[in-house]
């Protein structure tokens, strides 16, 4: 090995340590008892491994004044994320399909406006969105949050699908048209089966965005309907007396786990899908 390669590995090693150290601290802290935390250093391994903080975080930690753990909030997030991801992905796919294969006058302007939607900061839409949700009668409910995330997600989902579908030859659609297939038949039987990589990309992207969202969650939900990120914040910030670091860490791990698992199982499609559009077959 040359000096250059050694240097490369050393630098990469430093980066790995930089990113993994916090995770290491979180994992070992979540497995320690409070005494263990007080006695040992931050980096030291637990003297005895305990899963009590995880159990407590899941079903008996105090979120505000209610001490029922993250359990209910976890399912809130699932109920928000799953429909929002599915709906925004399907709408994005339809939009991409129309914008590339059924072009209409002004299609490029519509697409540009949708792109614009991707870059509007969350804070800007808070007030109008609050009015809108109130008007629709879904303020503070889970369906309301689903709507917010769908609306916000359409821009990115459309961008992904549109850029993927421009690489699929128009002749396929023409051939199917002559074969007698209509708008939705072509979509379901030709386009969607070809879209697996980009569906994976969009699902991962949308799921991560929606699961990790805090601002919309804290603004547009109330009481028992809050998503898990808001509950985590409340656990960490509202505890009185002794600071239960092990509980906080376990709770944070539980919150982060679903997105982590999605990356582990679908990550390689993510990279493949992101680059798929750029190289023509």
């Amino acid at each position, binding site marked *: 090995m040359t000096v250059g390669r050694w240097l490369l590995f050393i630098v990469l090693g430093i980066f790995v340590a930089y990113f993994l150290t916090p995770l290491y601290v979180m994992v070992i802290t979540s497995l320690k008892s409070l005494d263990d935390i007080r006695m040992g250093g931050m980096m030291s391994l637990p003297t005895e491994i305990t899963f009590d903080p995880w159990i407590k975080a899941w079903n008996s930690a105090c979120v505000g004044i209610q001490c029922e753990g993250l359990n209910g909030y976890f399912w809130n997030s699932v109920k928000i994320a799953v429909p929002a991801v599915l709906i925004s992905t399907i709408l994005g796919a339809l939009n991409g399909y129309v914008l590339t294969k059924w072009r209409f006058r002004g299609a490029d302007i519509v697409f540009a406006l949708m792109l614009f939607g991707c870059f509007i900061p969350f804070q800007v839409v808070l007030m109008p969105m609050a009015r809108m949700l109130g008007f629709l009668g879904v303020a503070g409910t889970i369906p309301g949050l689903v709507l917010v995330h769908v609306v916000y997600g359409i821009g990115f989902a459309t961008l992904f699908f549109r850029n993927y579908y421009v690489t699929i*030859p128009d*002749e396929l659609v*023409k051939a199917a048209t*002559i*074969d*007698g*297939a209509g708008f939705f038949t072509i979509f379901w*039987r*030709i386009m969607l*089966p070809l879209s697996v990589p980009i569906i994976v990309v969009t699902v991962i992207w949308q799921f991560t965005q929606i699961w990790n969202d805090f601002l919309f969650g804290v603004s547009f939900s109330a009481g028992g309907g809050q998503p898990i990120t808001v509950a985590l914040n409340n656990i960490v910030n509202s505890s009185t007396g002794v600071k239960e670091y092990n509980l906080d860490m376990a709770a944070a791990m539980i919150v982060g786990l679903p997105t982590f698992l999605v990356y582990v199982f679908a990550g390689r499609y993510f990279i493949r899908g992101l680059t798929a559009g750029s190289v023509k077959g």
Partner: protein
Amino acid sequence: MASLEIRNVIKRFGAVEVLKNIDINIDDGEFLVLVGPSGCGKSTLLNAIAGLENASAGDILIDNKIVNDIPPKDRDIAMVFQSYALYPNMTVRNNITFGMRVRKRRTAEQIEVALDRVAELLQITPLLDRKPSQLSGGQRQRVAMGRALVRDPKIFLFDEPLSNLDAKLRVDMRTEIKKLHQRLGTTIVYVTHDQIEAITLATRIAVMKDGIVQQFDTPQVIYTQPANAFVASFMGSPAMNLIPAKLGDEDGNLHVEVIQESGESLSLEIHKPEDRLRAHVGAAILLGLRPEAFGDQEHSVGINESVRQFSSPVEMTEPTGPDMLAMINLGGVEVTTRLNAATQVRMGSAGHFTVDMSKAVFFDSESGKRI
């Protein structure tokens, strides 16, 4: 099987007129080739026939029925695309039967029978369970044709179907398409930019340029009597020589005067000139001569009254195998002659040539139209 009529079709994209008053009429069972350089509107015209694009004005009739407002799926046509456009997610079997399954007009057994017939005809039976990505270019081409054939349509439309194949395969498939046409007798409209394909396949050719049909006729007429200088130079390889010349009259005998490289004037008497030529006496014209109208004197078979003789220095020779192409300079342009392969004509020295003036055509040098 059906006749096809295109009546004064105009197609505009915004302000640009890509098809200008197209008028074409073919009978049942004909093989029409639309040929022209890229951007001439031939693919747009094919799409209009298919119904994938609507004409801005004019009518398209299939079997004497106006189909302007009939969607592509109900026009009873089938189309083969340049990129084959096979559905990548389906097997060959499903690719071919997709149209029938979508339409739901036939039973599963009928579909199976139709599939078997086409697979056998195109010899793709062993490939039926493969995906398009597992096929070679030629095999994909066959499957694409199978998908068109299986529906037994009134008209087949081919959009440059051979241009993605390598040279050898292209010639093979060309022959197969011609055989197929003879066997099925179905009306075919075929788009290509390859003039050899056009001449070998067509019963009628429409040569297009800039959205205008330059000439619409049989291959033979298009080759021997091109309507204008563009058709003359586009059809045939090597192209027809267009030599700047002057039309002269000597005691009623018309002749063309061509300036040779040496600066001397070569006078070639026209064989049985038509009367309309007389109006152009004294004017500058273009003399159109195919390379095979020339010969060398030692190999000329039976010099007859239409053949003239002249000498010219040879600038370049290109043996092609069956022939020898010799380039000479006439009227200030390079002229390609096609000689016998055994010719004694050599590059750099003077060669003795013959030219058959009964094969000559004349164009107005201003408008390019044939006189």
